[in-house]
């Protein structure tokens, strides 16, 4: 099991062990900085060496994760033997080199002072109305190394302000110091060179092409790394001052990349979120969804428990609601299905897992509120659940080759994409099995291994020798996305390929809670830590930890996926406990709605009003991430613990609510995060025999035109609600087809599936013939509900139609 006691976030202790190995290998040189002799690895930049001594050389353009550019000249230092002061950010140290910073060199001090005076020359003195005021490197460094007064009396350069470089990012050009951090980030890190420096001399400015805004998924990072207030975000502009904010380190709840974040709030409201520095995971970046999509935390919340009475919900007290839930569930005990949302913390998922097996005496539990298959469940149970880290971000970076299967990392796990792009720039070969060569694959210089939707298994089993050889190299990695569930035999084929080539295999789910829920055993047939439910020893372990008799635990694997929903619909299950699930997310939303409708008794644990709360008999409001502490487990299997942002929040976590229901039912559950972690830690990961791996014969793609699809990063997702600026930067909803199909279709296409049709603009792309790519859940195209389709479903295309 990966999640254990409350380990603090930050570098894990075993890194230090690895570090000692590295030191032996690295070539060290001796340098002198400000008279202090020190040994640093060869190739170290002067500015980094100075940092190690705690000497802060002023800088603007320097950023440790961007290539040096030496443009701002703020970091000039004196280098022994060089006639001119040199920029510390680009000065590679050589053995015996002696450098002097502003603390020991008058030359450096005067040079820095001069540059600072120049920087302030055209910089407006609008600090009172600038968002950066109070946390501004220019302010700070002007105070520390600048002149007390400017000698400049002329007119400052002016620009029209602010201009939108995207709907979310605003630019005040007159504040810009032309450090090129934003443009270098866009080019080097995100691979979206949509902003560039334009014009020259003092008129130089950041800008975009007239018809192409800076709609990068990572645009928010430029706001964060801007050393002045030139780039600001629409969502935070004029909202607050840094000294008003309380900052709390948190983990991102949006996807399984597992970013460390800093959440800033003021008076009980989150005002902004920033990427936090975690070199092992997100480095210093995050995606725009993680950064800007937090308005949902405060909007549309369920404020009090509700009970259905005479057909409609009414507000109830907590004791009343808990009592009602307990009575209803007790009646249905043994015939209850539990649906756990994909964004539960591992502690909450564990509570559902234990609640189902003890209080409800059922094993009908599934965390996959999406398309899922029995093959996938077997794959996850046998290979992923509770398993140690098989591949980490660092492994991606050092891998000679990475094969992506049913995974579009830029949309489905953006930080994986950033790391893969970093790796690709250093020579890693990225391969992607799929039907379309996307823009992100291009940014990773990747190669497409063509496979029609549904044909992935065949493609994997018939990889050419060259590709196999690439994956056979030590360190190669295979990353599998959540959509593998939709392709028959693909999971089996991937396992076979990994066995054959020896490549490391990792599952990259999209949602932040899926890996944790899997580890916590929120899947039928699986107990916490990857324990097979059918294993006698595993059941005894778990029963001991839970303080119950092993005989009282269910021994037959329960229903999952569509089977579970069908059972509820058909009345074979009499009650459902639904925690944070959106019914429209299931591959067959109609079935999911029917299941909830037809179940005799439904308890919904939710923070927002949803389709489930509309139908539920008891609605129990639960905390959102800012109101509880917990842990997400990212795709690596790395715990991402986070603390409670709002310590005085009155809402309760799912685990605590379940504990109250359990108690009312005469059972018991640990209620707080600390005791859950302790219990999970004591239980530990399973070392015995695992459930058998799936061995499903490859499926085949349907004839005719089939759908290829995935969820875009910015789409109709409920957690992005309330942030119109972010939504405006989403990619347009289009249908992407090959050039020949596009020629036949014209400008718009009407796509008809089993349940209906949608009409979308046609865009030509690198897509296989007889395949149409559409977004899964974007405004104007929700394939499950609108088309009744999943990836691989054959559809009819007809030209034209009103878009």
């Amino acid at each position: 099991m990966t999640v254990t006691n409350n380990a603090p976030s930050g570098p894990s202790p075993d890194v230090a062990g690895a570090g000692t190995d590295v030191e032996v290998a690295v070539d060290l040189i001796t340098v002198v900085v400000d008279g202090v002799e020190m040994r640093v690895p060869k190739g170290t930049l002067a500015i980094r060496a100075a940092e190690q001594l705690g000497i802060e050389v002023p800088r603007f353009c320097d950023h440790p994760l961007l290539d040096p550019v030496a443009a701002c000249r703020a970091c000039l230092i004196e280098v022994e033997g060089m006639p001119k002061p040199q920029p510390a950010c680009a000065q590679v140290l050589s053995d015996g080199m002696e450098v002097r910073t502003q603390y020991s060199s008058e030359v450096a001090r005067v040079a820095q002072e001069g540059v600072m005076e120049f920087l302030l020359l055209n910089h407006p003195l609008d600090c009172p109305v600038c968002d950066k005021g109070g946390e501004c490197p220019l302010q700070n460094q002007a105070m520390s190394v600048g002149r007390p007064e400017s000698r400049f009396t002329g007119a400052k350069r002016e620009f029209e302000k602010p201009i939108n470089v995207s709907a979310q990012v605003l630019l005040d050009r007159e504040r810009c110091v032309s450090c090129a951090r934003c443009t270098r980030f866009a080019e080097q890190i995100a691979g979206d060179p949509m902003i560039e420096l334009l014009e020259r001399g003092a008129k130089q400015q950041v800008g975009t092409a007239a018809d192409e805004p800076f709609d990068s998924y990572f645009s928010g990072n430029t706001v964060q790394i801007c050393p002045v207030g030139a780039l600001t975000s629409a969502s935070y502009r004029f909202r607050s001052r840094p000294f008003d904010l309380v900052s709390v380190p948190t983990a991102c709840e949006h996807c399984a990349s597992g970013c460390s974040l800093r959440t800033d709030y003021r008076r009980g409201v989150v005002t902004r979120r920033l990427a936090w520095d975690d070199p092992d995971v997100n480095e210093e970046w995050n995606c725009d969804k993680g950064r800007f999509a937090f308005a949902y935390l405060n909007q549309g919340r369920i404020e009090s428990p509700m009970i259905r009475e005479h057909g409609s919900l009414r507000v109830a007290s907590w004791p009343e609601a808990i009592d009602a839930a307990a009575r209803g569930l007790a009646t249905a005990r043994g015939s209850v299905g539990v649906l756990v949302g994909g964004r539960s913390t591992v502690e909450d998922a564990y509570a559902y897992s234990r609640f189902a097996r003890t209080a409800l005496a059922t094993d009908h539990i599934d965390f996959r509120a999406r398309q899922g298959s029995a093959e996938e469940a077997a794959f996850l149970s046998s290979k992923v659940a509770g398993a140690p880290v098989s591949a980490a971000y660092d492994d991606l970076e050092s891998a000679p080759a990475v094969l992506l299967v049913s995974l579009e990392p830029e949309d489905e796990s953006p930080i994986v994409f950033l790391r893969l792009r970093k790796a690709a720039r250093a020579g890693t070969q990225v391969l992607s099995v799929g039907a379309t060569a996307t823009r992100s694959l291009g940014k990773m210089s990747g190669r497409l291994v063509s496979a029609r939707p549904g044909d992935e298994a065949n493609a994997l089993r018939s990889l050419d020798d060259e590709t196999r050889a690439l994956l056979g190299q030590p360190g190669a990695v295979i990353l599998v996305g959540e959509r593998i569930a939709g392709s028959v035999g693909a999971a089996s084929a991937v396992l076979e390929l990994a066995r054959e080539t020896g490549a490391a295999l990792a599952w990259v789910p999209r949602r932040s809670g899926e890996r944790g829920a899997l580890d916590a055993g929120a899947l039928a047939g699986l107990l916490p830590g990857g324990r097979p439910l059918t294993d006698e020893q595993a059941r005894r372990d778990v029963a001991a930890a839970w303080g119950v008799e092993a005989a009282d635990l269910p021994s037959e694997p329960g229903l999952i996926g569509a089977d579970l929903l069908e059972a509820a619909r058909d009345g074979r299950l009499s009650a459902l406990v639904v925690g944070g699930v959106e019914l429209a997310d299931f591959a067959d939303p109609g079935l999911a709605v029917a299941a909830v409708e037809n179940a005799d008794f439904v308890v919904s644990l939710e923070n927002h009003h949803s389709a489930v709360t509309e139908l539920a008999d008891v609605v129990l409001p639960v905390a959102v991430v800012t109101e509880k502490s917990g842990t997400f487990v990212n795709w690596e299997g790395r715990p991402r613990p986070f603390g409670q942002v709002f310590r005085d929040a009155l809402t309760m976590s799912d685990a605590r609510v379940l504990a109250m229901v359990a108690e009312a039912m005469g059972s018991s559950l640990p209620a707080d995060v600390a005791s859950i972690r302790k219990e999970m830690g004591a239980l530990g990961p399973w070392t015995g025999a695992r459930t058998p791996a799936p061995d499903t014969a490859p499926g085949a793609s349907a004839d005719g035109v089939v759908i290829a699809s995935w969820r875009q990063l910015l789409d109709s997702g409920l957690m992005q609600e309330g942030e119109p600026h972010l939504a405006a930067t989403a990619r347009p909803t289009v249908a992407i087809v090959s050039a020949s199909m596009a020629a036949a279709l014209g400008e718009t296409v009407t796509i008809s599936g089993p349940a209906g049709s949608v009409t979308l603009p046609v865009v030509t792309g690198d897509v296989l013939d007889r395949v149409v790519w559409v977004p899964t859940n974007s405004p104007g195209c929700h394939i499950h509900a609108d088309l009744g389709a999943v990836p691989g479903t054959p559809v009819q295309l007809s030209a034209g139609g009103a878009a």
Partner: protein
Amino acid sequence: MPLTPVITEHWDDPELFTISGYRRHGGYRALESALTRDPDALISLVKDSGLRGRGGAGFPTGLKWSFVPQNDGKPHYLVVNADESEPGACKDIPIMLANPHALVEGVIITSYAIRAKHAFIYIRGEVPEAIRRVANAVREAREAGYLGTDIRGTGFDLDVVVHAGAGAYICGEETALLDSLEGFRGQPRLKPPFPAVAGLYASPTVINNVETICNIPYIVDRGVDWFRQFGTEKSPGFKVFAVSGHVNRPGIYEAPLGITMRELLDYAGGMRDGHQVKFWLPGGSSVPMLTADHLDIPMTYEDMAAAGTMLGTGTPMIFDETVSVVKAVTRWLEFYKHESCGKCTPCREGTYWITGTLEKFEHGHGTEQEVETLVELCGQIMGRSFCALGDAAATPYPAALKYFRDEFVAATTTSADDQFDPVASYVFAGAVAR
């Protein structure tokens, strides 16, 4: 010292720009001979000749070639810097107009020596005539079999691309030129790596000035001893001096290095009648100015450096006493402000500030304190900017202040036009002084 026309020897032949005209005067003879030699021998030949770059910095050409790593498996490139845009410099463009085949022949020999299969001639975009002439010369050379594959049966392949710049002074800076050639915004690159190791398309690249390359055929043809008979030990050879300003016969005078300005002035027909030298610049606006006291200093790299200036492009500008130094320096700074690429702070902001203050002086405003502040500001740019453009921008003012402080102090109260009637400095007929 007599003039030594070499590159300019047959400029009176109106057909010189054609291949037949060039051949008539011995053109492409050097190439035939060079192709029979070992490339390394050519590099050492140029090294031995002591030829120094004619673009301004005066870096030894043979040494530059020898920095190119051989047998590294990467393509090598030769780039000719024909982006002549220094104020006052006008030598490369006349060379390309009058004798383009000397450039093409030099390019072929140089490419052969450094094992480049592609050469680029980056010509300033504002001079379409020069672009046409050079492009035509390249076409003629290709038709004559001097370019293409398996040149003269030696197995040596070379293609030459004539590229028109888009008009930016910064693109005369060699790494900015490379960026521009690659299709990016012309901005200087961080060095190291130097272009000889990772230049155009991250491959070893030699960047030479037009005049430097034009010297090559003559050195190969006539030998090191012939070349070294001109000039001095440290500055061997001859130089195309383009004399401009208040002289009677401004123009191009090819003379051995070591000739003095006074001699050049004589060749140029002396100052215009009734006027004396007030100040002059040996090579473009980027070098510190000198006065009439310095007319007898030999025009060599080392002597000019000893006098506190630089030979630069070797294109002297001479101004007589009717010219306001304040105004001249202001014009130059306006140029640098306009041409600063914006990459580094000192150059971008410094030129903005200095130009603004100088414009105040020009109109008779400002304070004596500002006269001193400007020196400090120039010091804040000099040696701290990203490339030499910043240094160049910081050069004119301190040099001018050294000799003409009174004029700047007076300019804080009296406008330049009131100090010096601008009409008096006009050289065209009919200008009448106030």
